[in-house]
């Protein structure tokens, strides 16, 4: 990924606050997005992610802070500056697709170009080019009200990129598609974004989608940012209880740090008395009373010396197809473990739970 520090950010949000009456939807959000980057705003509904996106588009009036697009200030609370949506030059894909039912596919896609008073021939060639990119060239003359959900989605993307914006905002663009189509479109969107080098801010509540598609993920909760990081960062080193819980499947194991362990680890005693070795947090000041342990990082079977090993009993087995989810009784209560479908154990059997100290994140 191109992260040249000399490259000024395309989107820069500082101390953004959006209020609806007394309720604060977005509370002091700050981030910057580099050219060509795809960043996801991830969080549960009502966390302020869509409001943030709409404030950047100019569809929502913030109560304070600054928003800069392509180094131009488009909103500034202190300067009382607010450039209307149509002058911001960003593009957006809406959750409902917002395909105009009274226009053909061609007219929909050409809209942004016609607004910019582009000559007819150029409009035609540009529309053809982007429809080709989304494999909708055969549908150009169709009335757009006769399209399926997936086709509307493609037209919405084509329309958003047709006037060659360098910033595109995506508001949960895949949430109305069925699971299989969603997985396909995810790949296609990422391809398109890479190919055209479009700086993208992408809102979703689907953590799997966020991890799969993004260069960086911003996890939001209650109008505030919980963590910003690469998908791997977010998954392996969640910064808060909320992130560990919301992204992926994690076990929260309460207990306390009892001292130093071997090889630079810390010793941790769970409730119920299991002794574990855990990774030393990067920030030495963390005085956690709970560790997060991903259910995919727990193995059954022999333990090497450096790993934690605790005996447990399989309480319940649920077959999910791509994985098997076990509920295992162990000294600290119950543990969720996900194993590939090849590792089949019966309910009631005793297993050795083993996991690496580096996967035990003290929170």
């Amino acid at each position, binding site marked *: 990924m191109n992260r040249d520090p000399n490259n000024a950010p395309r989107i820069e949000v500082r101390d953004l606050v959006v209020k609806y009456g007394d309720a604060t939807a977005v509370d002091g959000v700050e981030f910057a997005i580099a050219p060509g980057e795809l960043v996801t705003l991830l969080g549960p509904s009502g966390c302020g992610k869509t409001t943030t996106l709409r404030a950047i588009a100019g569809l929502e009036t913030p109560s304070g802070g600054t928003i800069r697009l392509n180094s131009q200030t488009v909103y500034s609370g202190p300067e009382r500056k607010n450039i209307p*949506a149509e002058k*911001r030059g960003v593009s*957006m894909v809406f959750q*409902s697709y917002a395909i105009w039912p009274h226009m053909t596919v061609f007219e929909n896609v050409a809209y*942004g170009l016609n*607004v910019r008073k582009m000559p007819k021939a150029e409009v035609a060639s540009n529309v053809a080019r982007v429809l080709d990119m989304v494999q909708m060239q055969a549908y150009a003359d169709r009335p757009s009200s006769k399209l399926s959900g997936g086709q509307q989605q493609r037209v919405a993307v084509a329309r958003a990129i047709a*006037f060659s914006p360098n910033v595109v905002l995506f508001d949960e663009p895949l949430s109305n598609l069925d699971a299989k189509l969603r997985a396909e479109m995810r790949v296609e969107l990422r391809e398109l974004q890479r190919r055209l080098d479009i700086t993208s801010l992408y809102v979703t509540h689907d953590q799997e989608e966020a991890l799969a598609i993004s260069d960086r993920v911003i996890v939001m909760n209650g109008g505030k940012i919980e963590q910003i990081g690469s998908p791997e960062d977010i998954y392996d080193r969640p910064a808060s209880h909320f992130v560990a819980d919301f992204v992926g499947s994690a076990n929260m194991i309460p207990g306390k740090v009892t001292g130093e362990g071997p090889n630079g680890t810390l010793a941790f005693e769970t409730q119920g008395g299991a002794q574990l070795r855990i990774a030393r947090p990067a920030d030495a000041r963390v005085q956690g009373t709970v560790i997060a342990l991903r259910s995919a990082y727990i193995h059954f079977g022999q333990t090497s010396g450096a790993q934690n090993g605790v005996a447990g009993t399989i309480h319940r087995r649920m077959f999910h197809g791509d994985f098997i989810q076990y509920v295992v009784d162990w000294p600290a209560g119950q543990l969720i473990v996900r194993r590939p479908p090849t590792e089949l154990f019966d309910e009631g059997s005793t297993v050795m739970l083993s996991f690496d100290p580096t996967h035990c994140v003290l929170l």
Partner: protein
Amino acid sequence: MRIPGVQTWIMMLLLLVCGALVLYPLAFLIVESVNVGDPQIFPPEEYGLGNYANLYEDSRVITNTLLVACISTVFAVIFGFIQAWILTRTAIPGRERLERLMELPYYMTPLIGALAWGVLLGPKTGLLNQLWRATGIDSDAFNIYTPWGIAWVMALFEGTVAFVMISASMKSMDPSLEESSRVLGASKLRTMLKITIPLVTPGILSATIFVFAEMLGSFAAAFVLGIPGRFYVVTTSIWQATLSYPPDYGRAAALGLSLFGAMVLTLGAARLIMRHGTYTTITGKAFRPRPMDIGAMKYPLMALAWGYIFVAVVLPLAALTLTSFQQFATVIIPQMKFTLANYETAVQMGSLGPAFINSMTLGISVATIGVPIIGIMAWIIYRSTMPGRIVMEYVAMVPAAVPRLVFGLGLLWAWINIPIPLYGTLWLLGIAYFTVFLPLGLRTIAGVVLQVDKSLEECARVCGASWTHQMRTVTLPLLRPGLIAAWLLLFIASVRELGASVFLMGPHSKVIGPSIVNSWLTASSELSAAMALIQTVLVFIAVAIMFRVARRIGGATE
């Protein structure tokens, strides 16, 4: 500034103009109601509450009004409920057609209903009474020139309104609510008592209150059927007070304002019930509830449903048609004499021909000018975030609570006392129509505005379109079917308007509604019948066009 200038200026202008149109006549009414000096002089020389004190003497009129309103509301709601239940919940054949026909009584207007029922059930000479007497009984089956008669005619008309409101609440009920009751073991009857009725109660209640408020301000039926028997309600008393010599404007204004107050209270109550009483079943999503299988019961139910259409539409129209071809007002069945003279008179007679032309002109221009203005207002009220939009909504909805007759009275003074010579011209009628039909137009267009997904417009802005460009290329084309429907509704409402026109029509600005009334008062009922039929046909043609256009546009955008 966040809001582009154009938008703000348009809103300020609309708010100012509509505010003036709505509130200025009301202000006049209020001033006049406390005028205890010479009622002809403005501004008043003496102020006092005498006119309101006199309301006490009018208590007979007020009880009359309440009596008629109560009787007709009960009947209208019963009609509406039965029709709504049959047409939404049972599997009778031809439901769709019946549902469409249910709109017809509404287009008939109470004036035409009253004229027709006068022909059918007038004492001694009424056609039905003649048939009744032919059986050998020496009395009338029913005298329509009584409070019950007025209530009957109004109930047939308002029954459609109640039907629309009640069937809407029945349709918006998720069928799974009833199904889960059945699955949990409740019988059909228990489900009906415990689930269905509680869920539709708010709909019935608000329909009742809404219909009651409309009845309070209704004029035509009480006028045609009440005056001959010297039975006065508030609206007809107002009419009488202004035509007596010397005109008692103070009394008229006080009566009118009391009526306004009563309507504000009842409509406010209806709104409250709508807002707090309805359950979350009203999601805007229209369910088609699984119709109940009723077996052999479907024949009596079908008869009932068609019976309403027959009594409310077919019978009155047939009676009017018969009368309109008669030579003499009193049709003695064995001695009928057919003639076309009434139609010739209606078309040729000096003042009547122009009345038709005037009404058409007014209908077309009020609709053409009104729709774009109301359309922009609807957009501002329901879509924009401008601070004045709530005020604007209230201002625009005020005329809904003012009886049109009272509004006409206010406009009369307002424009007599202003140096602009509008009184007695079509302009004044046009202004009056626009003002009194603001709520109708707004409600119609709002329904469409709210259906258009907001992101369709936002997307245009993000694509770089300015507000005006967005309105032109996205909003207006999407609203087109709704705007056309609103145009035709405004046209129909204007063509058949009576209440406001009664006071505002001048010798050179005659319109159909009051002309029918005048010919009924001064000339003959067979001539009025001919005119009423012509008006009805005009309205039906407009309705037919409306449906055709709506279907074509609906088909094209789907």
